[in-house]
């Protein structure tokens, strides 16, 4: 039998010439630019949706006139027209509310999915929505007793939405805070809150029960100029903080041990992301009720186009989340004469759309 020539295996196969490095860097920069282009396209889509959203209603305003009115508002010029008044007082708070809700929930959802390494995660995974629902139900049940007037529901919803995060923080002090532990703790808290909510609803009168039920279905009707600054502040600060955490989340994608050897305190980052996501989601949910699906579906759609680098994923999910929320709001007002709560629409549109994308995708998770 002829013996193979083994001598060729002795030399190194490594390319140490450095040739082609510039070309590779150039290709990568081009690759990144294409991903940034996706964000620009979605942003343009959002601007178009703005015109449609603000223009539609019982008092119709033309597409072109909407942008004129918004521009006038930005530069501080009031032409005294009815259009200006309708845009600034009625339509714009709702539009800005939709954008804030979409941006905040999508950024929080993207960060939560990356942090928990779980495609099913959304801003409410750790039990935030059930906490908020219980808080709101409790506030409605106690009514005037809590002495916070119309803000009682918002304050209670916000505070109780943060309780699951507080429980996880306490557990983390006793035990290693793994993604599975965070999800399981969140589910446990969710069951407790759901049971308490149902108990309080049973003890309520019909009017309070209807109010509590309505609160659980997300709507933008309650968004006004008076509560928008708080929502904007929470969503903006939270989103910037999550964007800052993106590079840590990227490194944690390589596994806890790898991230630790890079000098990352994995436990600390995980807790920090949980706290930020909880505050953002609680801040939004306490004003609007539970608006589902945006926080889960927007990051997934973005992953198909920009990949899983959180430095691109989080901003793109924010823009897409805003566009999806504004689009859902348009549909909620356009389909039938009675306004359908946006929480219903986001799930009705998001569900089939997401299913279609999942079926189209060849990979298990993108």
């Amino acid at each position: 039998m002829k013996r193979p020539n083994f001598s060729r295996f002795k030399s190194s196969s490594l390319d140490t010439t450095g040739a082609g490095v510039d070309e590779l860097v150039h290709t990568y920069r081009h690759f990144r630019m294409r991903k940034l282009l996706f964000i620009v396209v979605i942003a343009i889509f959002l601007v178009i949706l703005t015109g449609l959203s603000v223009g539609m209603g019982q008092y119709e305003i033309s597409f072109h006139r909407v942008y004129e009115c918004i521009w006038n508002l930005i530069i501080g010029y009031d032409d005294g027209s009815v259009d200006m008044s309708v845009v600034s007082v009625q339509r714009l708070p709702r539009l800005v509310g939709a954008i804030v809700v979409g941006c905040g929930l999508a950024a929080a959802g993207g960060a939560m999915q990356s942090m928990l390494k779980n495609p099913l995660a959304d801003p409410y995974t750790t039990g935030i929505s059930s906490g908020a629902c219980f808080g709101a139900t409790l506030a409605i049940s106690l009514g005037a007793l809590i002495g916070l007037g119309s803000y009682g529901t918002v304050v209670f919803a916000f505070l109780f939405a943060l309780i699951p995060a507080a429980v996880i923080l306490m557990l983390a002090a006793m035990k290693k805070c793994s993604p599975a532990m965070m999800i399981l703790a969140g589910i446990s808290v969710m069951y407790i809150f759901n049971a308490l909510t149902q108990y309080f609803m049973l003890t309520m009168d019909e009017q309070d029960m209807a109010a509590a039920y309505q609160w659980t279905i997300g709507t933008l009707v309650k968004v006004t100029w008076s509560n928008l600054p708080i929502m904007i502040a929470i969503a903006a600060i939270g989103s910037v903080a999550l964007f800052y955490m993106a590079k840590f989340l990227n490194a944690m994608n390589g596994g806890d041990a790898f991230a630790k050897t890079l000098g990352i305190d994995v436990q600390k980052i995980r807790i920090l992301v949980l706290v930020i996501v909880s505050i953002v989601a609680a801040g939004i949910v306490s004003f609007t009720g539970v608006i589902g699906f945006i926080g889960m579906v927007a990051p997934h759609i973005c992953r198909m186009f920009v990949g899983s680098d959180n430095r691109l994923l989080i901003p793109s999910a924010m823009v897409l989340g805003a566009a999806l929320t504004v689009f859902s709001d348009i549909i909620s007002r356009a389909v039938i004469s009675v306004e359908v709560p946006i929480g219903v629409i986001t799930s009705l549109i998001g569900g089939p759309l997401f299913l279609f994308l999942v079926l189209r995708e060849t990979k298990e998770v993108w």
Partner: protein
Amino acid sequence: MKVEIKDLHFTYPNSSKEILKGVDLVIDKPGLVCVLGPNGVGKSTMVYCINKLQTATSGEVLIDGKNVNDISFKEMAKFLSFVPHNEDDTFSMSVMETVLLGRFPFKGETDAMTDMRIAAENIKLLGIEDLAMQGFDNLSAGQHQKVMIARGLTQEPQILICDEPTANLDVRYQMIVMRLLRDLARIKQITIIVICHDLNVTAQYADRVVMVYGGKIMADGTPEETLTAENIKALFNVESEISELQGRPHIALLDYDGLDSHVDEILGNINRMKEEAAAEIAEHSKE
């Protein structure tokens, strides 16, 4: 860089069993160092005490004379990198983005262009430039290892620790990865410490072999010095015949009576437990 392990002891919290019982080891020359030993013997624990993923119960690990406990992870990441056994690819990034993570310890110190050039150089070095813009999860197990090694090299380390880089790879890719590591150690003049299981791949490519058994270093030296039939019998409790192939030891593992004696024992225990459980169920059903 010189790595010194002095009288290292290790016991897991809430366990009375001491895993490492006074390990002494000095690695002071660049090259490919393979750590061999049966499962659960503490070879990973010993190596993890070097990069601080585990903390020794007693004893010390010094890198260039400095105790690792006095070196922060961030500081250490600038001269020591770690290639994990496998990587969760739930949400995987592109190969280039994955390799660029190796520049994380240098953020704020080097500009983005420099980082990209270093990552690209290592991608080219490992010959995976065609995969650079592909998703990590689209790659084969062997390509995964190459990407993770490229990421480790992008940290520009003096010491590279690889945890079972040949696990789950077919024979050809085991050889490709080990040869790659040997060549990298020589070209870059760095120390590469590899935890591995395959005796022949180790014999073929290792510059030095460290055998861990019974919580101590059982043998330490060149493949010719360490990979003997006696050491293999002592380490894995298997018989072997050693010959020479391409100037390196070649190990032929032998089948023999008594090889599966412990397997018989385990199967016997399982059967006994099954019988006991069945008897108990039968008794309960009678009641």
